C-alpha cells in the first residue's frame, strides 16, 4: 500500500550554516537535566529529592494524571538541584552525572515475542513513553487509548534540519527493533514517511509512504493529513526517528541508552556539523567554543528556527530536539527597512529583489521586521499549508473561542509545527503558533 504523495504547497527556507556530514563524539556531560516545560500541558510530580542517587532510567518525575507515565534520568548520577520558577513551577531537574552508576535493568527480549501489554509496560517504566506523542493535540500519548496507526516521519524539511539518513547510518537494525515494538502498540500499522532516495525503505513490518515537496512535507502531521487524515474521535500516535532508536536499544540491551545525535547549525556556528551527545545535555557542551563570535548578540535555539525554543547557554537541550540553531539576534533598527530593494532579503513573497537573484543560502536574524497588525492579506497562509484546511478561518475560530468551528476547521489535525511557516511569512506578524496552542489547550480543557 505504498503511496507517493507529491505536495506543492509550502516553502523551503535556505539558511546559511547547514551541518556538514561529519560526526564528533562529545565527552559525557558533567550535568544533564530534564525540563518539564518541554511537555505542553503536563503537571509533573517529583519522584526524587535533591541528593538522591539515580540510575539511568530511574524516574525523576511523573505525570500527575497518568502516574504510569514516568520521566527518567538520561544518565546515572546524583540529583543536584531542582530549579523552580514562579509559583514553584518545576523548570529543571538537574543531575550531576557519575559514570560508575550505570543504568537500571529492564527485560532484554525481542519485542515481537512479547505481548502488547509487556511492551507497553517496559516502555512506560523506562521513561521512553513521553517520546510517543498523540494527534490530536501533539501531547504525550495516553497509554489507555488505542491509536488507529503510528506515524514516523523519517526526514525533516525544516530549515537546516538534520539528515536522518546520515544520523541513522549503521543503526537501522536497532531502528527495526524499535519499529517492531511500536507495531505491538497499535491495531493499525506503523507508517513511515520517507523522502526520495531514503535508506528507510528497506524496513519491514511497516507501510512506507513517499513524500515529495517543500517544507512542511517532512512534518508528520502533513504526512498523516495526506494519507489518512484524523477525524473526530480518532487518535494517531507519532514518534520521531531517534526516539525509535531508544526503544530499539531498550529491548536489544535491556538498558536505557539516551545517546542521540544533534546537528549544530546556523550562520553563527563556525563549523556546523553533527555531535553525539545525550538527551538533556547542557547547551554549553554543544555550543561552547564553536560559535563565530561569542561576544556578538546571538540567539541559541534548541530545535529549528521555526518551532524551536530560545535557550540560554546555561540551559539544556530540549527533550525532543535533535538540532541546535544559532542565529543573530538582530535587535537593531533598520533605516527605511520597508524601502530597501532587498537584494539580500529572502521573502516568501516577491516584494523584494532577493527573489530575482536566488542566492544559495541566507543569513536571517530573529528580528520580526515590522509591527503586529490585524489580518490584512488573504491567501498567504493557504499557500504554505499542504492540507485540506483553511488556516486563517481556523485561527479566527480560535480567537473567538468557538469550539464547534475549531472542530469543523480541523483543529484535530494540526499542531504548531504545521502552521509555523504561516507565522514566518505573515505580513501582519501574527503569533500563529501561540494562538494555535491556545486553541488546542481550550479543546483539551473542554473536551478532555
Amino acid at each position: 500500500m505504498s503511496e507517493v504523495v507529491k505536495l506543492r504547497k509550502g516553502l523551503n527556507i535556505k539558511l546559511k550554516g547547514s551541518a556538514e556530514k561529519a560526526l564528533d563524539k562529545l565527552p559525557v556531560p558533567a550535568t544533564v537535566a530534564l525540563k518539564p516545560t518541554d511537555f505542553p500541558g503536563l503537571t509533573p510530580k517529583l519522584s526524587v529529592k535533591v541528593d538522591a542517587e539515580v540510575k539511568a532510567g530511574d524516574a525523576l518525575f511523573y505525570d500527575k494524571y497518568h502516574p504510569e507515565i514516568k520521566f527518567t534520568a538520561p544518565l546515572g548520577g546524583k540529583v543536584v538541584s531542582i530549579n523552580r520558577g514562579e509559583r514553584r513551577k518545576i523548570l529543571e531537574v538537574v543531575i550531576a552525572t557519575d559514570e560508575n552508576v550505570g543504568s537500571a535493568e529492564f527485560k532484554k527480549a525481542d519485542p515481537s515475542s512479547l505481548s502488547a501489554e509487556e511492551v507497553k509496560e517496559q516502555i512506560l517504566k523506562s521513561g521512553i513513553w513521553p517520546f510517543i506523542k498523540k494527534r490530536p493535540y501533539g501531547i504525550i500519548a495516553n497509554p489507555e487509548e488505542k491509536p488507529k496507526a503510528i506515524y514516523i516521519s523519517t526526514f525533516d524539511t525544516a530549515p537546516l534540519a538534520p539528515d536522518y539518513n546520515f544520523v541513522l547510518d549503521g543503526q537501522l537494525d536497532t531502528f527495526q527493533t524499535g519499529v517492531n515494538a511500536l507495531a505491538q502498540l497499535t491495531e493499525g500499522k506503523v507508517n513511515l514517511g520517507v523522502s526520495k532516495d531514503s535508506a528507510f525503505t528497506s524496513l519491514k513490518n511497516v507501510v512506507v509512504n513517499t513524500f515529495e515537496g517543500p517544507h512542511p512535507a517532512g512534518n508528520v502531521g502533513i504526512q498523516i493529513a495526506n494519507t489518512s487524515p484524523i477525524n473526530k474521535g480518532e487518535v494517531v500516535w507519532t514518534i520521531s526517528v531517534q526516539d525509535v532508536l531508544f526503544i530499539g536499544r531498550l529491548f536489544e540491551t535491556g538498558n536505557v541508552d539516551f545517546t542521540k545525535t544533534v546537528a549544530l547549525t546556523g550562520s553563527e556556528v563556525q563549523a556546523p556539523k553533527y555531535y553525539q551527545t545525550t538527551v538533556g545535555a547542557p547547551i554549553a557542551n554543544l555550543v561552547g567554543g564553536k560559535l563565530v563570535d561569542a561576544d556578538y548578540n546571538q540567539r541559541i535555539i534548541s530545535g529549528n528556527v521555526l518551532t524551536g525554543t530560545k535557550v540560554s547557554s546555561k540551559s539544556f537541550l530540549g527533550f525532543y530536539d535533535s538540532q541546535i540553531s544559532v542565529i543573530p539576534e538582530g535587535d537593531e533598527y533598520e533605516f527605511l527597512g520597508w524601502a530597501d530593494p532587498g537584494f539580500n532579503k529572502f521573502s516568501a513573497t516577491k516584494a523584494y529583489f532577493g527573489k530575482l537573484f536566488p542566492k544559495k543560502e541566507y543569513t536571517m536574524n530573529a528580528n520580526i521586521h515590522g509591527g503586529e497588525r490585524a489580518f490584512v492579506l488573504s491567501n498567504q497562509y493557504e499557500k504554505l499549508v499542504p492540507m485540506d484546511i483553511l488556516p486563517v478561518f481556523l485561527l479566527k475560530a480560535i480567537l473567538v473561542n468557538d469550539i464547534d468551528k475549531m472542530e469543523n476547521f480541523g483543529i484535530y489535525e494540526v499542531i504548531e509545527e504545521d502552521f509555523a511557516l504561516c507565522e514566518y511569512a505573515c505580513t501582519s506578524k501574527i503569533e500563529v503558533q501561540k494562538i494555535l496552542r491556545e486553541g488546542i489547550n481550550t479543546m483539551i480543557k473542554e473536551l478532555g
Partner: protein
Amino acid sequence: MKFIKNFFERTEPLVQKGAKYHWLNSVHDGFFTFLYTPKTTSKTGTHIHDYIDLKRTMSIVVLSVVPALLFGMYNVGVQHFKAIGELASTGFFDIFLFGLIKVLPIVIVSYGVGLGIEFVFAQLRGHEIQEGFLVSGMLIPLIMPVNTPLWMIAVATAFAVVLGKEVFGGTGMNIWNPALVARAFLFFAYPAQMSGDSVWIALKDTDKVVDGFSGATPMADAAAGHLNYSVADAFFGFIPGSIGETSTLAILIGAVLLIITGIGSWKIMVSTIAGGAVMGLILNAFAGSAGLSPEVATYFSMPFWHHLILGGFMFGAIFMATDPVSASQTEKGKWIYGFLIGILAIIIRVINPAFPEGMMLAILLMNTFAPLIDHYVVAGHVKRRTKRAKVSA
C-alpha cells in the same frame, strides 16, 4: 542619519503613558517606525520572520498606482488645453505642470485629512498607526473629478476614514473599500457638483472654451446614445474622466507590478474583467431586440471590450476590487466576487440611466456580499470535511 535615530530614542520616554507628551505616543511611534524598522525580535513561535510587513506591502501598492497618477496629471493638462484650443501650441512640460498644480493639492488634502484622523484614532485606541491609509489616501484623489473643490475632498476623506474604516476597528476590519466610500459619499451628498460635463475639465471662469468642445466623458456620451471617442485615446487615456482612471495602459502597468509581487490578487482582476466582458457580450446579443430606444440600442451594441477601457472599469478592477480586506477572502470566493463585480458594473452602467458609471456601486455592493460568498465557500469546505469523516467511520 544617526541623529534622527538618537532623537527618536531620546524622546521615547517622554511619550510613554503618564509622561508629559503621552498624547504624542502614536505619532512618535508612527514616524519612528516609518523611518526605522523596529528592533523588536520574536518572543514566541518562529524565530525568523519574513522581511515583508504592511509598510512594504502598502508602499508597493502606492508605487503601482504612480503611473496612473503621473498620467492623470498629464491628462488633466491635456484636457484643459484641448478645451481652450491651445493643445497643439503647448509643450509637454507645461501641460504636465498644469496638471501637477491641479492634482497635487488634492493629494495633499487627502493625505493630510486622512492621516490626521488616523493619528488621532491610533492615539485614542492606544495602538500603532496602521498603514492602510497610505493606499486609500492615494486612491481617493485618483477617483475624483479634477474640479472637485478641496473642501469636498476633505469632507469625503474624513467621512471615509471615520465611518468607512475606524468605526469598524481600523485597517483590516472595514467592510467597504474606504476610497470608494469617499467617492460614494460625494456622489450622493453633492450630486449637482459631482456630475454634468464641467467637473471633468480644469477650467477657470475666464477661460474661453473652443466651439464644439463638450467636456463630457465617453460614458456620458454613450448613455446619450453617441459613441464618439477613439479606441486609442480611451486606451492611452486622453479622454475626460476622473484623475487617475482614464489610462488603461498606465493602470495595466500597475497591475503588472501587483501581480508580479503577488500583492494584488490576479484572480480578482481576471474574473472582474471576465465578468465585464461577458456582460458586454450579453448586451451585444440583445442590441437588436425590439422595444429598445435608439440611444439604448446604440449603447447595447457598443463592442463589449470597449467597456473595459472606458470609465473607471479598469481602475476599479485592478486597484479597488482587489483590496484584500474588503474583497472575498477565499480563493473560490474571489472568482465569484470579481465576476459579479464585472457583471454588475456593466449592468448599472448601461441599463440604469441614473448612473453613467457603475464600477463604484458594483464594487461597494460586492464588498457587502463578500462575507456572504465566503460563508458559503467555507460551508462547502466544512461539508466536504465532515463527509470525509463519515466515509472513514
